[in-house]
């Protein structure tokens, strides 16, 4: 049945990658936050805000900056949102859930205020190239960018101080502090990193259609977190897995796309998705316990 609907047709994986790219890229960043035992609820509306800012920097009706500068500013802006989260958490001592919940509301409002609740257009053809256009035959650029960012994230997590400290903080924050690590600083950096990845996700999102909807991101935060957790990163912190996050994001998207293609009734799609999310994480638990027992 799936076959018949062209679901397994060649090019389906690139298509899934394309669809999953915005959420997936945000999930890469969120993996660091979750590795510290934190959580980031602001990525959903943060995506809207970052996309609105991208349109503000690049859109013909607005600043109309050169592409490279505009993209740089967009990423910087994402980092700034992350910085605000990081400072609220590290220095004001707010629990990550609350700090990022507050930011979720603030970002939602600001996106609407800045866009004046209107869709914003980015006509710049070079910008649009970042999404569906293919440079490598058969693979949309967004898919390539997603993979490249996943590799970068994996290197940061496994091979840099940032990754090590994120895991250490998630494992035992107090012990890490007493080892002389500047926990506040590194935690802040983790949220900044998540913010930058969020902005990268926002850029891919905006590039797909060239039109930014200021209210679309709300709710994406749960998909982002689900992708990370399905990928095997523990919400308790201390363990993280970028490849897992990539797989988690693709799994979620495949599921959604598959159900659409199989023309499952939409109400049932929610039920099926819910059950499969539960089953996937359960199967992963079982697999891991078995691996541990060997």
């Amino acid at each position, binding site marked *: 049945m799936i076959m018949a609907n062209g679901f397994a047709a060649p090019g389906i994986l690139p298509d899934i990658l394309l669809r999953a790219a915005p959420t997936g890229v945000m999930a890469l960043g969120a993996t660091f936050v979750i590795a510290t035992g934190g959580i980031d609820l602001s990525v959903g509306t943060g995506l809207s805000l970052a996309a609105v800012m991208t349109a503000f920097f690049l859109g013909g009706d607005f600043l109309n900056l050169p592409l490279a500068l505009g993209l740089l500013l967009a990423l910087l802006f994402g980092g700034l949102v992350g910085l605000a989260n990081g400072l609220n958490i590290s220095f004001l001592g707010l629990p990550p859930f609350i700090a990022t919940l507050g930011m979720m509301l603030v970002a939602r409002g600001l996106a609407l205020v800045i866009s004046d609740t209107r869709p914003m257009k980015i006509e710049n053809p070079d910008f649009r190239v970042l999404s569906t256009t293919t440079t490598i035959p058969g693979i949309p650029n967004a898919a390539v960018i997603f993979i490249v960012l996943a590799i970068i994230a994996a290197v940061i997590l496994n091979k840099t101080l940032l990754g090590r400290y994120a895991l250490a903080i998630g*494992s035992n924050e107090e012990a890490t502090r*007493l080892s002389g690590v500047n926990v506040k600083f590194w935690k802040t950096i983790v949220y900044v990193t998540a913010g930058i990845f969020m902005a990268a996700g926002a850029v891919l999102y905006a590039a797909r259609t060239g039109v930014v909807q200021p209210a679309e991101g709300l709710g994406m935060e749960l998909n982002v977190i689900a992708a990370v957790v399905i990928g095997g990163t523990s919400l308790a912190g201390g363990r993280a897995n970028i490849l897992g996050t990539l797989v988690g994001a693709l799994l979620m998207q495949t599921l959604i796309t598959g159900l659409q293609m199989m023309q499952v009734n939409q109400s049932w799609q929610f039920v099926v998705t819910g059950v499969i999310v539960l089953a996937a994480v359960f199967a992963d638990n079982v697999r891991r316990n078995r691996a541990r027992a060997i």
Partner: protein
Amino acid sequence: MSKLLELKNVSKTFPGVKALQGVNLDLMSGEVLGLCGENGAGKSTLMKILTGIYTPDPGAEIWLQGTQVEVHDVNHARSLGLSIIHQELNMVPDLTVAQNLYIGRPGSHRRGFINDAALNKRAGELFDRLGMHLDPKALIRDLSVARQQMVEIARALSYDSRILVMDEPTAALTVAETDALFGMIRDFVTPETGLIYISHRMPEIEEITDRVSVLRDGQYVGTVTTKEVEIREIISMMVGREVSGDARPRTEVTSDEVVLKVENLSTKKLLEDINFEVRHGEVLGFAGLMGAGRTELARCVFGADPRQSGTISVHGKEIAIRGASDAVRAGIGYLSEDRKTFGLLLDQDIKANTVMAAMRDFSIGGFVLDGKIRTVGTEYSELLKVKTPSVNQLLGKLSGGNQQKVVIAKWLVRNCDVLIFDEPTRGIDVGAKEEIYELIEQLSAQGKAIIVISSELPEVLRVAHRIAVMAQGRITGILDNADATQENIMELATVGKPRMEGSAA
């Protein structure tokens, strides 16, 4: 005397580790049986099998008073009259002392409703009976490790158990509390009951046990009657060699250069006007009773807790310490007395823990050097004889003593000028203890300024050139090693405090 308990052919395999192999053990009624062995010998594992926390490999048999039983879980163990004080504290920090005492116990509620006033009253009566001074209404999280340990002991004694296991109950206790505990143990043992006592402190083994069983590398070595053998012999059964009992430091301080100087240090909570200095190559010991403030002093110097006034200078230069990272940057290392909470990343591996305080030396431009980390991790676990299949083992899977060694390794790798060891040999076996003393000696010979906080007087006398004694947040005296004896230290430690005071809240 009849056999109260018999364990036959107990084996336990963890992934990559054979913790126990065919161990036999028996406990007579009316006796205190010592259980000795090096770190990682399998003592805790054996006791966890006995009390239903681990399932043994097939083939194991547990016999209680002549009937074979299978212990399913903690409650089942308890209903069989088996209870245990674990090596690691198992308290619920957000509940009160009384709530912890009675949690999970039948009779602590009426149809699901709990009467805290009644629980407090019962707890108070229990403490009175045991001669403990604890406030039933205090939150566990506000108690020092030692006080929490007292609560654990009270809890274990309050069960009407036939067999009680104590896994290193005195690791956090000082001499006075240990004596009190021994009194309780003697009251507990009747012709119907028996007690298994695990400790690395040989004098305690000598004092309280009737017989001693020894494990080595997960295997049963033998059992001796305590009165009939010398402690030396038990130790050699454990380690397979003799360990010397030299009691005093073998190095001398040659330099006059002051490395660490603390002046007029006070905190809101406890410390008052603390002044001391540690010289190049010197080991300064800190002795005192539970709650004297030694840990608080160490944490304060290290920047882990805020101070109210006072200055801290390293190499003559006053340093502004606002947090632990400032202290580490200034060259101060601190090994906490509570390794689980403050020292370890339990779900990270040995090598990651080993280099945690010195990550900057293991990275270039923000990228970590995994090869170097592995090499150094391996080097230090060999140096400290950490018992593990590999440096990739997670810390949570090491025995208590081996975990302690990894924390020590962390500060050795960091190579600080000032090292503060708070109870460095807590939970470490006699053989390894001596190794750590030698290590401290080597470090002082290299010119490091070292503070050793210990509740074991022989240990302080063994390693410290000078000994500062604290009582109630003040330094009541500083003795040269040559002038120090257990007696005069105790005298200073109890200045103005003739007996253990006990209002916790």
